[in-house]
């Protein structure tokens, strides 16, 4: 390997350029922000830096789409990684562009906030690309740590600190569980490289089945916590409610997607040989998650909590698909999960950014404060409606297509029962989405509510997301093709 100076280095750092760019720009953002006054720069410089860092990283990631190489046997840059890299960078980009007004207004420590988002993105990207347990673990912690703090950054909101505390303490327990599980895997297989683990496990009986099972349980607990699987989901609604809305969006998008990426890497890779041992656990969790998430959502009055429970339910569907990964449909199920994930993220971001703008205008986040939005801001009402319908899997929107593909994959893998539960849960979910839509369309706005408009960036992001919602809903081929390419390594 030669670097730009023509010198040979031990490792090909070029492979990690997107991550490095993001790291550097996060440092830069934090630094510039800290010395804003001294440097006499305007308030827009940090966000500009963050955005340019993201754009550069995005460009670099796109350049590396066709790469299939490893970095020091620790991370693998392949199509799967590229898919998630682009996804994560795009999420962060959209969140920052879509909600920078909110961030300027309602987040303390703006510079740190941007920096943390970038670092969390790096963590998520590494989670998706790791091919070794320690790296994966540290990537998880990088993402989690950034989010612990980001959650606590809502300005003048006591709930923020509480949310952060709940997240960090329970997160500690969960990561201890995960580590315990990893230690078992390591103990049984003697390896931390995925492919070595895979080789040992597929070689047959090690005589250590029970410790391995214990390890599996604890890994599932640890990742289940990150993925908000019931009963490890309890932090989710509180953290979602207390966090600044962009962070909530980030939690529901990047954090979940990274966890799914990791789950796919692990359960579709090293742990695949022992699929029969974890499938039933994951099925149970998936069912509990779908059922509890959607049922409790029925009773929510706060939009963020509602979306939290909704995202718990959504994670249930994806866990279900991971069960299918174990049934000999690794590639098909993976591409289905990925396409659903992408669709879900587009949808969820649309909803969250719309809610962010609503909050900017009104300062409200109760569901009944959406009363009459269809008259005070019909555009936003349409955006939220489209988003919620897409979450419910209604047609013409991307949610329908991705859910269809996802469920079909699971059925094809022979889990019709799971899918039936999922479809029932998804039908229940329609009810609470409709409760929000009802507020917007059926009732008159409160007296004195005037018509208002979004900011330019608000229009830009929501419209972009909306258009992709509809386009991918009707013509999901590009999305599915990308997902399929990413899943080709399974």
């Amino acid at each position: 390997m030669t670097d730009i100076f023509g010198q040979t280095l031990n490792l090909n750092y070029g492979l990690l350029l997107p991550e490095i760019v993001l790291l550097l720009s996060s440092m830069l953002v934090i630094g510039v922000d800290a010395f804003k006054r001294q440097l006499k720069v305007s308030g827009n410089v940090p966000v500009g830096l963050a955005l340019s860092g993201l754009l550069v990283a995005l460009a670099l990631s796109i350049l590396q789409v066709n790469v299939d190489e490893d970095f020091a046997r620790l991370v693998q840059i392949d199509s799967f990684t590229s898919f998630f890299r682009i996804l994560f960078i795009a999420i962060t980009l959209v969140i920052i562009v879509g909600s920078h007004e909110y961030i300027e207004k309602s987040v303390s420590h703006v510079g740190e906030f941007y920096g943390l988002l970038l670092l969390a993105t790096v963590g998520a990207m590494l989670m998706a690309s790791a091919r070794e347990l320690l790296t994966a673990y540290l990537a998880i912690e990088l993402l989690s740590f950034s989010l612990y703090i980001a959650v606590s950054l809502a300005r003048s909101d006591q709930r923020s600190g509480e949310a952060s505390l709940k997240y960090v303490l329970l997160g500690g327990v969960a990561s201890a569980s995960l580590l315990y599980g990893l230690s078992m895997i390591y103990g049984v297989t003697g390896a931390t490289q995925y492919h070595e683990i895979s080789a040992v496990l597929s070689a047959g009986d090690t005589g250590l089945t029970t410790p391995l099972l214990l390890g599996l349980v604890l890994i599932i607990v640890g990742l289940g916590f990150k993925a908000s699987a019931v009963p490890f989901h309890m932090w989710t609604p509180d953290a979602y409610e207390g966090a600044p809305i962009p962070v909530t969006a980030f939690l529901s998008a990047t954090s979940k997607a990274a966890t799914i990426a990791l789950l796919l890497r692990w359960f579709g890779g090293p742990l695949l040989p022992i699929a029969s041992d974890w499938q039933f656990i994951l099925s149970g969790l998936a069912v509990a998650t779908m059922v509890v998430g959607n049922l409790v959502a029925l009773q929510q009055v706060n939009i963020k909590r509602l979306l939290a429970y909704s995202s718990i339910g959504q994670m249930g569907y994806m866990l279900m698909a991971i069960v299918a990964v174990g049934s000999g449909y690794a590639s098909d199920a993976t591409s289905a999960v990925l396409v659903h994930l992408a669709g879900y993220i587009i949808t969820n971001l649309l909803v969250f950014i719309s809610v962010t703008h609503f909050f900017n205008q009104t300062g409200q986040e109760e569901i009944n404060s959406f009363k009459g939005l269809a008259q005070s801001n019909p555009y936003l009402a349409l955006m939220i409606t489209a988003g919620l319908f897409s979450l419910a899997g209604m047609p013409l929107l991307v949610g329908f297509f991705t859910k269809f593909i996802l469920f079909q994959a699971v059925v094809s893998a022979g889990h019709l029962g799971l899918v039936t539960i999922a479809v029932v849960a998804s039908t229940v979910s329609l009810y609470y989405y409709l409760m929000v839509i009802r507020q917007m369309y059926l009732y008159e706005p409160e007296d004195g509510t005037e018509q208002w408009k979004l900011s330019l960036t608000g229009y830009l992001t929501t419209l972009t997301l909306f258009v992709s919602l509809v386009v991918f809903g009707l013509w999901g081929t590009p999305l599915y093709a990308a997902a399929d390419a990413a899943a080709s390594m399974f």
Partner: protein
Amino acid sequence: MTENDGYFLIALIVLPLLSAVCLMIIPSKERTLIVGLTAISSLVMFFVSVYVFMAYSFDGSTFQGVKSYPWVENIGLLGENGISLKVGIDGVTASLVLLTGIVVLPGTWVSWKIQHRLKDFFILFYILTAGVYGVFVLLDLFFWFLAYETALLPMYLLIAVWGSTRKEYGAMKLMMMLMAGSIPIFAAIFALFAEVGLGTFDMEVLLSASKDEDFQKIFFPLVVIGCGTLGAMFPFHSWSPDGHAAAPTAVSMVHAGVLMKVGAFGIVRLGAQMMPEGALFWGPALVALGITAALYGAISALRQTDMKMLMGFSSVSHMGYVFVGLGTMNVIGMTGAVLQMTAHGLMTALFFLLIGAMYDQSHNRDLPNFSGLAKQMPIWSVFFVFASLASLGLPGLSGFIAEVHIFIGAFRSYPIVGGLAVLTAAITTTYLMRALAQSFFGEANPKWDSLNEMTWIERSGAAVLVAAILLLGLWPSPWIDRIAPSLSQIPGLMM
């Protein structure tokens, strides 16, 4: 029908969607523009529907006007032609397309008097229309189901925003029940795909592919339950009276007139055509459910006082005939079922148009509150009597020709059911005649002197439906010549 006529089928989906998009761009203030656009688009849809119906002629091939565009293929689960935008019709759908065209036309006309957010109404209304057309013409299971759900998607808002009486309750109930109904359909579609295992949702392929008999026996009832919910089959009919009572006029028309038929059509397409052996196995159960629904709806209707509730239960009863016809699994009964879909669609659309025309003025639909309405609204009453006669199966009107096929079909295999079905027609007479005698005739109640006659637009709309009812009733062979040969392609179907 030539292959190029497939473009007309695509137009049937695209036209309403395009209208919806155009409406989105038009500012809400421009009422004239909105009315003009909808007038043109509904007329065009009507004529295209008529053309499609006329152009279809049975030539031995199952589907005609087939156009296929690959959409998603060779990705993941999906193999060759995994998901394709494929259109095509058979005789059954040809007649249902025509029905849709006929019902949407007056549905559009009567909606012009909506004052509250007219534009939004039409956007949703045309999305609904696109969904309904889609279900009939699409030949890819993915898009079929997409269209199916698209037809349900706008229902909640259409009813809850523009409806009346217990609109929120009715809307939510309708939406949730229908979505719950799509659960088993969903499951059946997935299972079908997995069972055939060719990695394609192409319905033509799925139709001809061999399916395990046990598979068919398991999944046919799921299809029946799912589609039956939309078709208001007892005991999943509960949304129908409440939903219809709450819905605005045009939505009731399209919903009772066409959307319920989508449910019954689902049983034909996904059930009988896809899983003939399952259908043969479960036919008796379907007949039993159907006749129960027919009797149950009719008897319940005897005690209803709200006109729309009456029509809701009446629809349950009439759709019961459809299920009886489908369950007979012989060509006459099934032809009768499809005819009954059309007949009931026209007749019930007329009913809802009329009820809407009056309710808009009186804000009252309770039969005992009225008396001698024929005095204040003579033309309206004539139409109403006509609709009632069509509903009770008077020969010469659409209901009879359909019912007689169903009765004959039922008698061939299940004489008792046939007898009960004929008896149901008598009960139908009873409740309709009771309503007429009580509220339309007799001394006029001066309280309603302020009621005006129907507007000319409403009269024209009603006239369109009346003409169609008469045409089908007096000259049914254009329908039968299309429906029966297509149905007789179902393997194992009794002649």
